[in-house]
């Protein structure tokens, strides 16, 4: 990018007074000494002046009295109750409020899902559950111990004998 290109990129901001003092001075001194950049400045100023002149000319013909009469008519006009209600609701649903409402709604939804997934204040059953059991002909006992929330599967020995210690094992079965 040449110096002129860089200066012409900044002319708008310079004319708007939005450059820092040092940059402003640099642009000013270049523009005053450069034909191309001087022409660029003139083009921008012409656009501004023409547009401003056009709009000011139109606006200067705007008479206050009829304008105010129309505004007053609208103010005094009784509006249907449903239009009033809609306007009130719409005035509450401003973009910033909606933007905050969305994360708030997500947090509430998460809270609800958490509660639904883990009811009773988030307590899951700590007991192991037995879904199915096949003891191949043997007797079995299922025990749940409340204090430690322990599930116990106790397999009784086959009286026909799994091993030589059947009798003792049977005797030493759990006392529950």
């Amino acid at each position, binding site marked *: 990018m040449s110096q002129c290109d860089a200066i012409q990129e900044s002319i708008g901001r310079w004319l708007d007074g939005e450059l820092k003092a040092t940059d402003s001075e640099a642009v000013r001194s270049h523009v005053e000494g450069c034909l191309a950049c001087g022409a660029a400045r003139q083009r921008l100023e012409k656009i501004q002046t023409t547009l401003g002149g056009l709009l000011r000319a139109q606006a200067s013909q705007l008479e206050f009295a009829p304008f105010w009469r129309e505004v007053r008519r609208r103010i005094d006009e009784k509006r249907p109750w449903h239009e009033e209600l809609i306007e009130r609701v719409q005035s509450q649903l401003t973009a910033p409020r909606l933007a905050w409402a969305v994360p708030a709604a997500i947090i509430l939804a*998460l809270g609800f899902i958490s509660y639904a997934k883990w009811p009773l204040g988030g307590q899951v059953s700590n007991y*192991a559950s*037995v879904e199915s059991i096949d003891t*191949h002909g*043997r007797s079995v006992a299922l025990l749940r*111990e409340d204090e430690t929330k*322990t599930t116990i599967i106790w397999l009784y020995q086959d009286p026909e004998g799994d091993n030589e210690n059947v009798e003792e*094992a049977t005797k030493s079965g759990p006392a529950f």
Partner: protein
Amino acid sequence: MWKKLRNPVLLFSLVFVSAASWLHAAESAPQSVQVTVRSILAGSKSDEFDPKLKSIEQQLKPLKHRSYRALKDETQTIPWQGSKAFEIPGGRSLTIATQEFQNERIGLKIRLTQGDKPLIDTTVKIPNRGNIILGGPAHEGGSLILSISAATQ
């Protein structure tokens, strides 16, 4: 940074990403399950309690044996939908297969065999980082008790 967080759009994005991660983490299956099988000998000839079993002392109390001795601990990592075999004293084998993970509960399929003979087939759901007790087979004059615990990884 805190000023930026006041931007509702940024906060919304943060909440949305957190929510999505949380839900994903809550529902997606873990990579594997670490299973520990503790083999314990319960007897009635003496009053002794192996200090190694202190952590599950309360769980063993309902069984009302006089003595408890730790025989063997074995830990294996079982991949999801996979199975592993644990060697159990007395020529037995415990095969555990991982089934499902839902609501912080691990579904396991457990088979205890003596040689080729199946002693018990059961499907259980254990709380994550919890355990289940399986006992009864005779061993060395007492009874064999297995504490099977599982934790997702």
